[in-house]
């Protein structure tokens, strides 16, 4: 609980961060930039979990602990994503999104 800040303001911030992440995911042309956008999204959701726990249900710990799990999963997923990107780079010598379009009509 932060003195003087209502929950609405925090939600506003996290929502803006979430949608910036979505914008980046849809817009960027580089696979690693897409990865970075995913990180933003994940972080926004983690903050949401913690804030709700802290503001609305202070005697429970579910949100807090779940946020730990989210961070763990995000880390694992980023590691795997990077290894895939590196393997892909070896095959097609490029990390542009437009070179990964072969599964189409």
């Amino acid at each position: 609980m932060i003195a003087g800040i209502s929950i609405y303001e925090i939600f506003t911030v996290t929502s803006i961060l979430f949608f910036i992440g979505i914008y980046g995911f849809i817009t960027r042309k580089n696979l690693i930039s897409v990865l970075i956008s995913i990180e933003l999204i994940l972080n926004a959701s983690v903050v949401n979990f913690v804030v709700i726990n802290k503001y609305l249900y202070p005697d429970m710990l579910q949100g807090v602990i779940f946020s730990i799990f989210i961070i763990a999963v995000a880390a694992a997923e980023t590691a795997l994503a990077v290894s895939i990107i590196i393997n892909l780079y070896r095959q097609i010598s490029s990390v542009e999104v437009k070179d990964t379009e072969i599964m189409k009509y």
Partner: protein
Amino acid sequence: MEKYIFYILSAIIIVFALASVSSRKMLRSVIYLLFVLCGIAGIYFLIDYNFLAAIQLTVYAGGIVVLIIFSVLLVHHIEMELEMVKMPRKILTVLLCVLGLGVFLYTIYNNDFNVVENYITTNTSDIGTKLLSYDSGGFILPFEVISLLLLASMIGAIVIAKGRKLNDKNNG
């Protein structure tokens, strides 16, 4: 006092996030992400959740960003300028995001949250006890599952990133 710190932190977060997704240079984008992550850690500190703030800084800022930087160095010429998408797509996406944001905020602001005033600091020992307890409400199972997940992702990363050349050298 906390109010102002919060406002500064949120300004940092938002500005650097925007910069991160619209930067033309790869490395700068990663560094801006780093700043965003630090800002978020600051919010965790403000909210009396020191443990997670520490984890955020260690894992995210220290681990993931470093990983991303390594991959950037592996696949890129560092000074290469990134291509940006064309204007129509950008406008469309901005519109979508604004629309989505509108939906979110409309819903949020029309809901009454029963805020409970408190200034409890989350103890690390409480978290640890909860994480490893067998009672109802204990998180021992997700804890074990997460460890399995991490193992799987490690093995997966190694296998995928090993590539063919190393394989052929080992077998042939």
